[in-house]
């Protein structure tokens, strides 16, 4: 199973990443790709994301390995952006390549649920009245619990 894990400021291109994930592997029959975007609720202007360098990559890698142990996967690409991101911009990509769609869909959802609950990123919302830290949601923890 290949694993490409990046934490970066720069934007990514989903087509390019999927092409790289599936290159030269004719055993891949399914690619499930999730992209998270900055949603413009309640006059949001931008999100600013910070992370814990070192722990971030380590946590994501551990969960990618966990996914590889639960499902037969050919490859995983996770790219998570940090810095100031405006409404509509891409935040995160989780792309999973497998022989069949069951594994690809399941692993993609599993990895997104864990990114929401364990990966050390923190978001700050910027509106006209200033910046406020986003609070973690119980629904995200509940989503992650179902994989236990």
């Amino acid at each position: 199973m290949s694993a490409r894990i990046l934490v970066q400021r720069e934007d990514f291109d989903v087509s390019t990443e999927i092409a790289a994930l599936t290159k030269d592997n004719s055993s891949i029959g399914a690619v499930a790709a999730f992209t998270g975007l900055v949603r413009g609720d309640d006059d949001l202007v931008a999100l600013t994301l910070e992370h814990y360098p070192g722990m971030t990559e380590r946590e994501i890698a551990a969960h990618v390995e966990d996914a590889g142990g639960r499902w037969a996967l050919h490859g995983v690409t996770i790219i998570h952006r940090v810095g100031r991101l405006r409404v509509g911009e891409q935040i995160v990509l989780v792309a999973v390549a497998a022989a069949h769609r069951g594994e690809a869909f399941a692993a993609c959802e599993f990895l997104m649920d864990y990114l929401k609950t364990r990966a050390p990123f923190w978001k700050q919302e910027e509106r006209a009245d200033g910046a406020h830290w986003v609070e973690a949601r119980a629904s995200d923890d509940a989503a992650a619990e179902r994989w236990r």
Partner: protein
Amino acid sequence: MTLLYFAWVRQKIGRGEEQMALPGGVSTLGELAAHLATLGNGYAEVFSDAKRLRAAVNQVHTQWDATVRESDEIAFFPPVTGG
């Protein structure tokens, strides 16, 4: 020890990183948090309610009863909000 602070923990304390000798009588993460609360100002506000915080020792999520050592990297932060 290296202490790291993130998000509003960093903002309230006023710094993102500091070096600190392991205080006498402190051997767990919980005891360290209680000690930090006595430093006043932002520390008192941040560490007054451990339920609002999470911690990692050497980059691994850890519980409050975990042992802490002089050579550890210890981070305190709010529940994560990535993805």
